[in-house]
C-alpha cells in the first residue's frame, strides 16, 4: 500500500519536473514566437495540477522516516534478545557440558588411582601366599585372583568416561556452531550497519565423535571384523611382523 503511494508521488514528481522544464523552455521561446503563449499557459496549468500530490510528498517522507526508525528500534531489540538471551544461554550450556566432562574425568582418574592401589594390595596378597601350601593360603590366593578379575573389570567399565566425554564434546561443538550462527545473524542486525562482518564457519572438531556410544559394542565390533575380513580377502594382507 505504502509502496503504491510512494510510486504515485514519484511519478507526480517526475511529471512535474518534466512540465517545469517544458515551461522554462516555453517561456524562452514566447519572446520570439508569441503564438506559443497558449501552449505555455497550458503547461503552467498542468504543473499547477500536480501540486496537491507534491505537497503530500514531504509528509509521506516524514512518515516513512518514522517507520524506518521504528523498524531499526525493533531490530535493535531483536539483536539484543539474540545476543543476551539465546547466545548467552548457549554459551552457559556449553560451559556446563565442559564442566561435567571435566568432573567425570577427575572422578574417573580418582577411581583409577583407587583401582591401582587396590591392585597393589592384591599383588601383596598374592606375594604373601606365594609358595605356601596351606589351606588358608590357597584360599587367599583364590580370593586374590577373584579380586584381580573384579578390579580389572572395573577398569574396563571406566571406558564410559571417554565415550561420554566425546558425546558431550560433540554436543558442545554443536552448541558452539549454533552460537556462531546466532552471532552472525545478530551482526547482520547491527544498527550501525556493520554488515561486512564475516560469517564464520562453525568450528568443527576432529576430537569428538558425535556417534560415540557405549551401546552395542559387540555388534559394532562384528561389523569391524567383517569389513576387515572382506578387505583381507580383496587385497594383500596388511603389513605385519
Amino acid at each position: 500500500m505504502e509502496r503504491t503511494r510512494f510510486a504515485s508521488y514519484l511519478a507526480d514528481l517526475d511529471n512535474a519536473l518534466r512540465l517545469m522544464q517544458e515551461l522554462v523552455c516555453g517561456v524562452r521561446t514566447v519572446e520570439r514566437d508569441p503564438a506559443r503563449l497558449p501552449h505555455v499557459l497550458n503547461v503552467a496549468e498542468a504543473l499547477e495540477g500536480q501540486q496537491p500530490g507534491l505537497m503530500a510528498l514531504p509528509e509521506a517522507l516524514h512518515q516513512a522516516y518514522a517507520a524506518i526508525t521504528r523498524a531499526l528500534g525493533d531490530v535493535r531489540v531483536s539483536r539484543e534478545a539474540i545476543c543476551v538471551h539465546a547466545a548467552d544461554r548457549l554459551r552457559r550450556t556449553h560451559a556446563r557440558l565442559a564442566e561435567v566432562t571435566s568432573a567425570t574425568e577427575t572422578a574417573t582418574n580418582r577411581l583409577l588411582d583407587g583401582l591401582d592401589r587396590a591392585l597393589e594390595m592384591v599383588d601383596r596378597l598374592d606375594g604373601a601366599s606365594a609358595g605356601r601350601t596351606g589351606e588358608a593360603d590357597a584360599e587367599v590366593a583364590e580370593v586374590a585372583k577373584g579380586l584381580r578379575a573384579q578390579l580389572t573389570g572395573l577398569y574396563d567399565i571406566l571406558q564410559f568416561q571417554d565415550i561420554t566425554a566425546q558425546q558431550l564434546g560433540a554436543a558442545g561443538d554443536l552448541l558452539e556452531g549454533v552460537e556462531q550462527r546466532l552471532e552472525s545473524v545478530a551482526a547482520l542486525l547491527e544498527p550501525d550497519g556493520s554488515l561486512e562482518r564475516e560469517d564464520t564457519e562453525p568450528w568443527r572438531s576432529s576430537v569428538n565423535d558425535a556417534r560415540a556410544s557405549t551401546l552395542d559394542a559387540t555388534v559394532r565390533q562384528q561389523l569391524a571384523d567383517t569389513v576387515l575380513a572382506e578387505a583381507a580377502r580383496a587385497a594383500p594382507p596388511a603389513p605385519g611382523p
Partner: protein
Amino acid sequence: MKCLVVDDSATMRRIVINALKSIGIAETSEAANGAEALQACDPSVGLVITDWNMPVMGGLELVRQLRGRPETAATPILMVTTRSVRDDILQAVQAGISSYIVKPFTPQVLKEKIDQVLTGAAPAA
C-alpha cells in the same frame, strides 16, 4: 614386546595399559596424539595401539605416516576407537591398520586382536 599407546584421553591410556598388563604386556609407552606418537615410535616399539579422534594429529594420519616410514612400515597397528561406521573402518583399512577395535572393548577382544596381528593370522569375520 613394547607397546605404544596413543590416545588424547589420559584416562583411556591408563585403561588400555591396564588391559595390556592383564594380558601379559607390561612394557608400554604413551603418547597423547599422532605427532607425539611419531616421536615416540622408536625401533623398540613392537605394537602401536592408537585412538582415531585426537587433536594435533589424529590416528588415521598417524597410521599413514607410520606406513610411509621404512622403519615402521611393518609395525602392527591397532586402531581402538568409538568410530564404527563401515566407511570409517574402510578408511582405516586403506590407511594401513592391522586390526580394528571398537570402544568400549574388553581385554579378551584386545588379546584376540593382538594375537591375530602378531601372528599374522587373517582376521576372522
